[in-house]
């Protein structure tokens, strides 16, 4: 009885979180351009979306940046986590502080800081600047994810590997990496979604000739709501659900 009552108490929050998304997805199939009255089922907005070159380009750009940034951030973040776990070195505290600063800084401050940096470097705002910025803000999250997995690791395994003649690199490759694989994958997925979700930092570091989804939608919403944006949202949301559940399954099975 009380369990059911608890479930009912949770319901309003779920309705609040999901209703806008569900409504948006449902109306992506509505055969009417402006009204919220139901005029019948249609696929035409998805067709319109595919024909909307600007929007499709922006979608491809977003995916490309997310994929490459997540990969770079995972490689660097993994190395940082292993270094922090394995070694004592000068500036270790500094490295930890830098990771912490990136994690807690307000997006808006990071955005303008990148803007100033790239201007000083003379980099043209576009793909490269986006990639560098996204890799930077994803990196600490990978380090933390991997480092927390290392916390319970038995160091004797590495010592055993070294007694058997493995160097530092081989010990990492054959002992640490297989054990860390789920955390590395989780870090990559987290970075990918963080990059896909970012609005504020991207706003400052991308240029007019390299459009990405959030910013494309930002300028479209100001001109009013369009059903092909609904169709796009429906696809993005479906994709998110698939990615989240896949990652959950992967992490569960590995445990």
């Amino acid at each position, binding site marked *: 009885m009380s*369990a059911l009552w*608890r*479930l009912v*108490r*949770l319901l309003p*929050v*779920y309705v*609040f*979180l999901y*209703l*806008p*998304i569900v*409504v*948006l997805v449902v109306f992506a199939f509505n055969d009417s351009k*402006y*009204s*919220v009255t139901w005029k019948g089922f249609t696929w035409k907005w998805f067709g319109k979306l595919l024909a909307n070159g600007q929007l499709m380009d922006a979608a491809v750009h977003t995916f490309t940046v997310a994929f490459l940034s997540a990969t770079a951030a995972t490689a*660097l973040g993994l*190395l940082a986590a*292993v*270094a922090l776990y394995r*070694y004592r*070195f000068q*500036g270790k505290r500094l*490295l930890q502080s*830098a990771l912490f600063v*990136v994690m*807690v*800084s*307000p*997006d*808006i*401050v990071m955005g*303008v*800081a*990148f*803007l*100033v*940096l790239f201007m000083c470097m003379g980099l043209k705002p576009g793909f490269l600047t986006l990639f560098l910025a996204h890799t*930077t803000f994803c*990196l600490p999250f990978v380090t933390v994810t991997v480092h927390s997995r290392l916390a319970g690791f038995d160091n004797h395994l590495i010592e055993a590997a070294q007694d058997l003649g493995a160097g*530092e*690199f081989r010990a990492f490759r054959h002992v640490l990496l297989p054990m860390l694989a789920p955390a590395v994958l989780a870090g990559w997925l987290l970075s990918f*979604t963080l990059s*896909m*979700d970012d609005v*504020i930092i991207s706003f*400052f570091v991308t240029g007019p000739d390299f459009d990405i*989804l*959030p910013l494309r*939608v*930002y300028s479209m919403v100001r001109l009013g*709501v369009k059903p092909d944006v609904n169709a*796009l*949202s429906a696809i*993005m*949301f479906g994709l*998110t*659900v698939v990615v*989240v559940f896949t990652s959950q399954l992967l992490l569960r099975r590995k445990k």
Partner: protein
Amino acid sequence: MRTTNLFRRISIGGAALWLGVFAVLPFLLIFATSFLTRDEASFVALQPSLDGYAGIAGPVFLDVLWQSVYLASGATLLCLLVGYPFAYALARMRSRAKNFLLLLVIIPFWTNSLLRTYALVFMLKANGLVSMTLMALGLSSEPVSLLYTEAAIFIGLVYTLLPFMILPLYASMEKLDNSLLEAARDLGANRFQGFIRVTVPLTTPGIIAGSMMVFLPALGMFYIPDLLGGGKHVIAGNFIKDQFLVARDWPVGAAASVVLTLLMAALLLAYHLSAKRIRRNGRSNGFEGGEA
């Protein structure tokens, strides 16, 4: 032996170099920019001055700051009121569905926040679903638009940031030791007293962490007042964005960023100190709770 050193060097050097150039350096540049002078041609002139700080000392920025604090604290309070009972009910569930229910809270947070803001625009606009529902229920005779109101900004901020409040709260409630509550009941406390004197003090770190994870990002979310408030309201984020991209006054924008960062650091420090105090108190007199 050589490879050993090589791996060590690569792993430390790679991360250190990247963070040095792309994390530490930009912050130093912002800090430096806030003490320089505005220049029409190249954004900043290398002439030290306090112009930036003079620019944010005036009534304009103070008004922005006041509005930001008002909107962000309102959103934080709303998130707490909605999130606390929710996290509590979820944490106390004994079913196997718990993890799945938690996952359901996180999924929307992984959907692009701008698309979710767009979903709210769709709900709140003049002929949107909310307006239709109100008319169908007979609560309103004509279409109402909630869009471009203060209420819409609060809805938008809470909608975007609620998961950030729920997760730390849930984490602190998960760790709650049920025997403490039982002890309180044995000592004659009723449900309400047990909640106020045991549960709330012990979950204070979660409350503070959740509040910070809502309050701080809220200050920067310039697109929410833009799209849902129609630009009538501003938060610190709007001010900084406009200084850099519209007014082209880098020193003022940089000075505002420095102030925002310092505010954040102060809050983090306060959190760190209070969490430490609560841990100390929690050990010595868990039943009294910290006099927070």
